[in-house]
């Protein structure tokens, strides 16, 4: 069987399994939320609203129905792409996610770009002299940034650059004195499309600290991955063969070792993207970044069942999509991959 048909079969099996995985995740979240202590009615009305008012609200929100019926409704709506409405304000969950997701994606993608550029640059910088000072500094950088607790790093960065130096805003996504640009929800993109430089600089100023913190914290993964894979590649037979053919070291590194060392890094990028979508929680909360992770945290605190379920399902779907895409790209780039 040809490699292309192997790949197609692999992709088909991954995509076929995706709905099953999403169903499992959705069911698990549905059940865990109901099993977890706490009551959305308490979160909405406080602990001592009269019993009649509590019962009326419970009925209005459909929380008085049997669990099986609630689950059936949830699943049937989910199959139609309807994630329900928020218990907190009656807003459709899809609308809330549509409003928050671009913020998370803008932050995550910028952080990822920064992490890749800085991490790969630092990882590559020590290659000329392994175990030299620069290599050692790169290794320390990789371990240090990976080991830093995100909430602590974010608060320190916030204190230094926003509070003490006053260079950048402490939080939020856009200056309070301006109105956000209209369009896709990606403020950088929307400001550029509108050619509004005030909006663009406002968006950028708010993006720098959260994206910078997240990016630098993630960059260590890229640094370590590239260092290790590049060193392994430089010691391999095909690099030795290239050297023996009299190629310059620069050409050997850039044209032979680096492309092979970058393939595992691509896989790591995929995993990082997946974890970024839902994993930027502490960064979003620290910097008041109105993304999906921030909303998820609020929704959990309010026991807003439909919103929590909706966010988890969407994030899970994105993670599945990204990992399949990365697998596909790696398979296309690396002919050695077998399925």
């Amino acid at each position, binding site marked *: 069987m040809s490699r292309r048909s192997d790949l197609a079969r692999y992709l088909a099996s991954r995509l076929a399994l995706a709905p099953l995985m999403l169903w499992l995740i959705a069911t698990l979240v549905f059940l865990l939320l109901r099993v977890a202590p706490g009551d959305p009615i308490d979160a909405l009305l406080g602990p001592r609203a009269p019993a009649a008012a509590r019962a009326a609200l419970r009925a209005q929100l459909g929380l008085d129905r049997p669990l099986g019926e609630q689950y059936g409704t949830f699943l049937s709506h989910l199959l139609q792409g309807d994630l329900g409405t928020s218990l907190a304000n009656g807003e459709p969950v899809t609308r809330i996610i549509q409003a928050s997701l671009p913020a998370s994606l803008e932050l995550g993608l910028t952080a990822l770009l920064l992490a890749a550029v800085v991490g790969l640059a*630092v990882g590559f910088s020590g290659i000329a002299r392994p175990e030299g000072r620069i290599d050692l500094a790169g290794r320390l950088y990789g371990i240090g940034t990976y080991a830093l607790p995100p909430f602590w790093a974010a608060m320190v960065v916030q204190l230094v650059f926003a*509070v003490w130096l006053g260079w950048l805003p402490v939080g939020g996504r856009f200056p309070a004195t301006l109105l956000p640009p209209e369009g896709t929800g990606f403020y950088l993109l929307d400001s550029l499309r509108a050619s509004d430089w005030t909006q663009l600089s406002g968006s950028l100023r708010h993006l720098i600290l959260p994206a910078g913190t997240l990016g630098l914290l993630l960059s260590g993964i890229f640094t370590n991955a590239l260092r290790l894979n590049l060193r392994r590649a430089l010691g391999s037979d095909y690099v030795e063969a290239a050297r023996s053919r009299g190629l310059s070291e620069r050409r050997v590194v850039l044209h032979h070792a680096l492309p092979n060392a970058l393939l595992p890094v691509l896989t790591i990028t995929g995993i990082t993207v997946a974890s970024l979508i839902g994993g930027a929680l502490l960064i979003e909360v620290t910097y008041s970044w109105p993304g999906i992770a921030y909303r998820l945290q609020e929704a959990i605190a309010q026991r807003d069942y439909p919103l929590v379920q909706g966010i988890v399902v969407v994030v899970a779907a994105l993670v599945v999509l990204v990992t399949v895409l990365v697998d596909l790209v790696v398979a296309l780039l690396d002919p050695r991959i077998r399925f």
Partner: protein
Amino acid sequence: MAVLGSLGLALPLLAGCQPPRPGLSLVVATKSRIDSLDPAQASRIGVMQVLSGLGDPLYAIDASGRIEPRLATALPVLSLDGLRARIPLRRGVLFHDGTRFDAEAMAFSLRRFMAIGTLGYQLSERVEAVRTTGPYELELVLKRPFSPLPRLLSAIFLTPVSPTAYREYRDKPLNERFVGTGPYALAFFSGQQQRLVPFHRYWGRRPANGGIDLVTLSNSTALFGALRSGEVDLLLSSGLEIDHQEALHRDAGAGRLREAVGPSQEIGLVSLLSDQPPLDRLPLRQAVALSLDRGTISQRVALGLRAPLRQLIPPSLPGSDPSAWPTYDPAGARALYRREGYCSGRVLTLPLTYRSDIPTDRLFALTWQAQLRRDLGDCVALELTGMESTTAYAQLDKGTLTMLFYDWIADYPDAENFLMPLLACSQAEADRCLKGNSVLGGTFWTAPGLQQQLERSSQLAGPDRIALLEAIQRRVGAASPYLPVWLSAPVAWGRLPVSRPRFDGSGRVLLGELHRLPTTAGGSPP
């Protein structure tokens, strides 16, 4: 490394690109995210503050506690049986959409609130029907006489909305718009930012500023930093940790900020499960009440920013009795513990649950535990358990929490809103409440005739009412099913170029009064 260096150099450059700030508008920061601007959905402090700029209540309570008509022109005129209240309404008031405010509009808003309001029970428990008796006269048919009616009608969640704008939203919320009669109109809404611009056809005094941008920052450090760095003009204390409040208080003392303290509608208290051992024993509850050193705890935990409290009704409201609960008396407490068989080699262990997601609550629990160990360690000890707020609230009426430290915030400023929600009991068996707010409050305590006293207190007015409220509090204080701990007052800090903020009697900053001060020759405001 070069990349990092370039990034480092770029930061100060970008720092210079500050967005322009409109001269007369102000930025106010708070922790409360706003999910909906519909008064029917309002239940949190943050949204009440925004609504106070966008809407008008029928009555308002000023800083001295006096009731003044706003959209009403006079206090309600009650029928002889006290079951019908006629309210004359102001003429010449326009909604932000240009339509006229009248009795029909007010009735529409109140009926809508009763039908779909999150706090709709506040009205529907007391009001049978809402009628119009003239183009500018409203009649409320009450279920029973209710003397604090004007205070209830001062609640900003009862602000009228335009029937035209809300025609499609009679039975569902309108989250992202607000069309009311207030001094400001809504120009932009998102959960994190609301822009309020002066409504030029407002019937009352125009705002002294060019508009307000209300922004939400998710944590205390960000709020604190935003004021310190000059990013915001005014900061509200809700959600701000005590350390940050204290630092800002010091700044205000040193003349670097302007500070204002509002009347408190929030009390911190401990509920005592009074129908199960060991706290079903009155002497033990009294002993626990005598064991609480509020002064020391307030000083250590709240750095003196929360006043010790020995009553359920805050001092800013009529009927408060500052000495309803006993003072700290370790000798008296020891005597009571001893009488109950403790102290002589037998230590009473009391489980105290605190809300783990509120940092101050944990500090309170730890400090009280240490204080008891120091002063009464041979008689009583606290066993601490942290529990997330929502989980703890769900446990309260199950009778599983021997003691819980939490807070109570009134929906409108009246004594009734502090006593009824904590003490009301619709079904009782001697001192044990089987059904009612006392169960929801986690004490399960009541007393013969207490419910009648509570109901009577909301029918009386004037000195008679005050005397009854004081008597109720003393009665509850003697039985100690709750221990009031402290009072959390709202505080606002403004930067020096902004006028000193002022609060109304409901604990909200008067946004319309805020303005930038003219700078002196030296460049600094007076």
